[in-house]
């Protein structure tokens, strides 16, 4: 049915006549026929807004619009916003206000905003929120989007420079520093113009489309896979099954490599990969998948971690005796005298908490593109990965090709949050299909496939016991956690350790016992999600601490202050905390939020709550045993001395790490921010860095960059000293000048020194590296997880309104005080905090993947799995409590993950303050609140004592 029709459209002012198939959506036409890839396809069902364009001036979802149906219309895409090379003021406002992070939603959001200001040039905040209510941003840049649209007119006629928007920072003398200033994101201009090419936007001649067939059942033995009918489909160039691919097992944890590229004998969850197809287009590939005949003997399956531990439960990995009882990972820790600690307590409280299986839901679907050079047998893979190095290594080991023959390139990534921290079947299959066909192969997950592949948060069952003295001093803590791991290990071993290791970082405790069990089930594998294993135990701890405070008649903040971690302290589980301003975050958040006046006094249905958190600034040890530096950087000075390139394999996935690394390079070198070019993240161009996970880039990548910059500077000082008649040690570099510290007028241009150095010694290149301190951790089993050069600390105070009749919770206001060491960039810093608050709100109140009776998620899309919108976003006040971390570059620590950790407990505690209902099972839904209120009424108990055990009303599948 390929009866093509001619349609006439005006696209970004240019008349076009195009032949389209009836089923071609406008987004496909724009991307595939016109190469306007600034319009993103991220859900395909009108739920996310990333594909928003203007049709005859009106905002519209181009994924829901058939191209034939808008014949004669005028279409404007994000590429059409800039006029005559001049960015639209809205675009400049987005860059300057920091209203973008990963950038994948940005084009759509800009088009919604443009449609608004076309009709309403001076919109109110409410009008802005309504206009953008359909544009999902998982990075949570909503507060900044509102500001940017509100002030768009300020940017008319103004050039887009790299000066901070904040007047106070702008007015600082440039002499001060580059570090610490809110310079606009390095990648901002590319992302607001649609010029940034993400993996799915790359076009190579002759590229095929690949797709994967997943198992229709949750557990079974694969008897037969017959692809002959699929292979016969015209336009299908290759079909691979388990028999056609390397049998190598792969996985994140070296000791538990339990995944296969394509199943050979057994499938373990709905979606487990069985076959892969490469075809000339997506439609043909999909048709071929449907023609692959698969025979599977279905086996009993288990979908609940506790059920999976019961004797006689179906075994997910029966071939391995080590996984008896479906136990994937076992942790048994005991520090101090736990029994004595509880015996010494005046009060011991114990409570069960249950977490939710949330999904990262980055707006960009995972994508990979692979191409072989046949003459050389070399492979290039472009991937939306957070960890190019681990992907590089996995490809090498799995395909049996030396790393030197593989090139991994990471284009801009549209958000990851942990979902893209490991190699996926997409990269393996793209590489294998490309080899089989001799053509480039591009693969993307659909939104549903993203949910199926998962690697989201482990659902945790937490039994927590805390003993305290009458004054609130903690005497002992006992935590038992069962983690639902799904069918494979992924990051889960590490998750199981993190779930235990971070509790003693925040509060002092003389004795601590932790028992962790990660359990296999026939669900998609859970992995590493922002905060990695820590948010749910922290939610439990912060909730129980409030319950204890109430029992003792103490203020929750006072209890926290009494036990708060202090600087230069070794925790009971042998983690070394150096800088720590936790107490200051508590005290200042208390004051700024008006806590003392508000708590318990906000009236029925309104409440305030506190939650805190502490987190690692980069894992102290790598994922696989190795002795090389974790971060390495190369800085090359351009030969005329007026520019610098920074090469590092660290991955900006939206968090802004490129920007802060460029700032640190500029700072150490003594040159302006806009002298520094960030080289593409490419294993051919940049030395190894372990990538973006465990909140490591600012600290570890920053150190490597600083080290490289020092070495460059040393070479310049050498020649400059000769020129200026002083010793290299006397010199200083700042503002593109090199001068004698004691006699600042004895100086020369930085560029002149660079030219001299080049003339004398050849190219000026500096190599830097960073290895964490060697002696981190206690030496017991698993003691490496949780070690870090430094720890961040924060306090969140949330205010909520609960509709006491429907149970709906609205988060009104959030105050965040965070100690992340020295802030390198206030805009990206606050952006991370705001994004964590928005995401944490979703995890606390909205999000959970729900498995149906057959183990298939019933809500694998963005209209059933609801993430927060701009209209759900509270008023946020984020303040940095600066410390100087001696182990961090320029004194810096992390902010990206730690800022999520306190949010869940703060909201849960605020809900309790508002309505007296203590919900111990996430998410805190309206339904659970109403159940708690009803229980309270039935018992006639005062509001303070109501507690809700999870109510188990069955959720039937959506019709």
């Amino acid at each position: 049915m390929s009866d093509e029709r001619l349609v006439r459209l005006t696209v970004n002012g240019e008349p076009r006549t195009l032949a389209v198939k009836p089923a071609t959506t406008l987004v496909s036409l724009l991307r595939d026929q016109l190469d306007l890839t600034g319009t993103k396809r991220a859900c395909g069902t009108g739920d996310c807004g990333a594909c928003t364009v203007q049709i005859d001036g009106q905002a519209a979802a181009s994924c829901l619009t058939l191209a034939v149906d808008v014949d004669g219309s005028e279409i404007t895409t994000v590429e059409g916003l800039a006029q005559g090379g001049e960015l639209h003021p809205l675009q400049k406002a987005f860059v300057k206000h920091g209203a973008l992070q990963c950038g994948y939603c940005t084009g759509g959001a800009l088009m919604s905003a443009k449609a608004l200001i076309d009709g309403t040039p001076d919109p109110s905040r409410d009008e802005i929120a309504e206009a953008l209510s359909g544009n999902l941003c998982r990075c949570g840049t909503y507060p900044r989007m509102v500001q940017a649209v509100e002030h768009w007119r300020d940017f008319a006629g103004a050039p887009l420079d790299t000066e901070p928007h904040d007047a106070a920072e702008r007015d600082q003398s440039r002499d001060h520093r580059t570090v610490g200033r809110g310079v606009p994101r390095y990648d901002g201009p590319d992302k607001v113009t649609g010029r940034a090419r993400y993996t799915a936007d790359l076009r190579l001649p002759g590229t095929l489309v690949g797709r994967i067939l997943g198992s229709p059942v949750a557990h079974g033995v694969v008897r037969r896979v017959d692809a002959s009918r699929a292979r016969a489909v015209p336009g299908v160039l290759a079909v691979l099954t388990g028999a056609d691919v390397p049998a190598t097992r792969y996985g994140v944890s070296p000791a538990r490599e339990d995944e296969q590229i394509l199943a050979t004998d057994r499938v373990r969850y709905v979606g487990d990969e069985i076959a892969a197809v490469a075809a000339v287009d997506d439609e043909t590939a999909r048709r071929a998948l449907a023609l692959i005949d698969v025979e599977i003997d279905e086996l009993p399956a288990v979908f609940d971690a506790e059920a999976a531990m019961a004797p006689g439960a179906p075994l997910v990995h029966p071939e391995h005796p080590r996984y008896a009882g479906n136990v994937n990972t076992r942790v048994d820790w005991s520090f101090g005298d736990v029994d004595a600690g509880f015996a010494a307590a005046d009060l011991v409280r114990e409570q069960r908490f249950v977490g939710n299986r949330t999904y990262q839901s980055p707006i960009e679907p995972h994508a990979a593109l692979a191409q072989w050079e046949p003459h050389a047998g070399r492979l290039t893979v472009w991937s939306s990965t957070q960890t190019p190095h681990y992907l590089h290594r996995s490809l090498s080991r799995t395909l049996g090709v030396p790393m030197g023959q593989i090139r991994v390139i990471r284009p801009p990534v549209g958000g990851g949050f942990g979902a893209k921290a490991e190699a996926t079947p997409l990269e393996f299959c793209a590489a294998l299909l490309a080899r089989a066909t001799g053509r480039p192969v591009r693969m993307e997950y659909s939104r549903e496939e993203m949910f199926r592949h998962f690697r989201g948060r482990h659902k945790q069952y937490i039994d927590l016991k805390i003993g305290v003295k009458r004054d609130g001093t903690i005497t002992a803590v006992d935590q038992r956690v069962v983690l639902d791991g799904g069918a494979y290990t992924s990051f889960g071993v590490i998750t199981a350790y993190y779930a235990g290791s971070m509790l003693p970082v925040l509060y002092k405790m003389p004795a601590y016992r932790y028992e962790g069990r990660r359990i296999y089930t026939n669900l998609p594998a859970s992995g590493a999600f922002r905060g990695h294993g820590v948010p749910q135990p922290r939610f439990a701890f912060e909730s129980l601490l409030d319950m204890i405070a109430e029992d003792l008649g103490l203020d929750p903040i006072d209890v926290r202050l009494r036990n708060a971690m202090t600087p230069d302290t070794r925790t009971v589980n042998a983690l070394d905390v150096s800088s720590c301003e936790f107490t200051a975050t508590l005290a200042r958040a208390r004051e700024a939020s008006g806590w003392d006046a508000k708590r318990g006094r906000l009236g029925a249905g309104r409440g305030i709550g506190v939650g805190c958190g502490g987190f690692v600034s980069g894992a102290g040890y790598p994922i696989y045993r190795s002795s090389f530096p974790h971060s390495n950087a190369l800085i090359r000075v351009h030969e005329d001395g007026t520019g610098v390139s920074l090469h590092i394999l660290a991955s900006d996935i939206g968090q802004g790490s490129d920007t802060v690394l460029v700032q640190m390079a500029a700072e150490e070198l003594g040159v302006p921010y806009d002298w520094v070019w960030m080289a593409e993240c490419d294993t051919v161009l940049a030395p190894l860095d372990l990538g973006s996970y465990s909140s490591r880039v600012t600290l570890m990548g920053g150190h490597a960059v600083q080290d490289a910059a020092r070495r460059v500077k040393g070479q310049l000082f050498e020649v400059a000293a000769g020129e200026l008649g002083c010793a290299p040690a006397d010199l200083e570099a700042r503002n593109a000048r090199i001068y004698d510290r004691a006699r600042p007028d004895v100086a020369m241009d930085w560029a002149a020194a660079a030219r001299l150095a080049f003339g004398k010694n050849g190219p000026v290149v500096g190599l830097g590296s960073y290895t964490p301190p060697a002696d981190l951790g206690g030496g017991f089993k698993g003691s490496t997880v949780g070690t870090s050069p430094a720890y961040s600390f924060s306090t969140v105070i949330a205010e909520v309104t609960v509709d006491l009749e429907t149970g709906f919770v609205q988060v009104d206001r959030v105050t965040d005080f965070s100690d992340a060491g020295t802030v390198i960039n206030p805009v990206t810093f606050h952006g991370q905090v705001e994004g964590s608050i928005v995401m944490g709100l979703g995890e606390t109140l909205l999000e959970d993947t729900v498995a149906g009776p057959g183990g298939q998620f019933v809500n694998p899309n963005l209209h059933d799995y609801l993430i927060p919108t701009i209209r759900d976003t509270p008023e946020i006040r984020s303040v940095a409590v600066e410390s100087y971390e001696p182990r961090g570059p320029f004194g810096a620590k992390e902010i990206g993950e730690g800022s999520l950790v306190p949010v869940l407990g703060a909201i849960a505690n605020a809900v309790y303050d508002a309505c007296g209902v203590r919900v111990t099972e996430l998410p805190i839904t309206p339904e659970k609140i109403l159940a708690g209120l009803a229980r309270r009424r039935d018992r006639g108990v005062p509001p303070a004592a109501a507690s809700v055990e999870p109510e188990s009303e069955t959720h039937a599948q959506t019709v």
Partner: protein
Amino acid sequence: MEFRYHRPATVADACALGQRLGAGAAFLAGGTELVPDYQRGRETAGDLIALAGIPGLRGIESGGDTLRIGSLTTVADVARSPLVARWLPALAEAARALGSPAIRNRATVGGNFCRAVSCADLPPAALVAGARLRIATPGGARDVAAAEFFVGARRTVLGPGELLTDLLLPAPPAGRGTRFERFSLRRGMALAVASVAARLDVERGVIAGAAIALGAVAPTPMLVPEAAELLRGGRPSAALFERAAEVCAAASLPIGDVRGSAGHRRRVVRVLVRRALERAAARATTEGPVS
């Protein structure tokens, strides 16, 4: 997603084409439900009859005792129409609650009715207003009451070749107040978990006429005549409204799904009905006649 695409220029041609192609054809208006239904495999029509080329199906105009809303009128048009705001505020509120601007700019009144999903936002308001739907057929036009339009989940009275052309609203009498209330799990762009439209006609302090319609809590949008009966002849009061709300909650037929259990939906219906009645009463008594 594969289909043949037809683009008739008149209503008569569209009807004739629909009749000829039979049950394997579907009309395409804004596409905001139909296109994702294709993606999810829920829609399989092999022929799409696009309505975009037919003039005259989009627009809102009042003609004496009737407000005519063409079936290709977008939800955004309804949301910002001063006429709708005067004739049936509940409908304007429902239109404003639907989706996001990018959806409302494409989604049509006709699509919202004809896709016949139980959580559609516009039908409850039309039901309480006693609206009629004008249907073009190969043999001419016929009108049906909005309340009789839906026959089951995703099913309407429309047969092959029958095209909804207009939503017809009767003029509101003096003393009428209407209100739309909706509960969803987040504030921005979310489907209704339960919705309610209420109408009260108050004469000299007495409820002379009333209607309550529920959305998302039964296979189709539904009127609750027992509640209307209970209200009629009474004086607006919290107690009366609470009783009507109880009747509605009992009459609802919700399912449990990932958005909430049946029990929670019932509890919410009760709250929404009471709130809708309170607001409708306020409008009927203090905000004066509306047309």
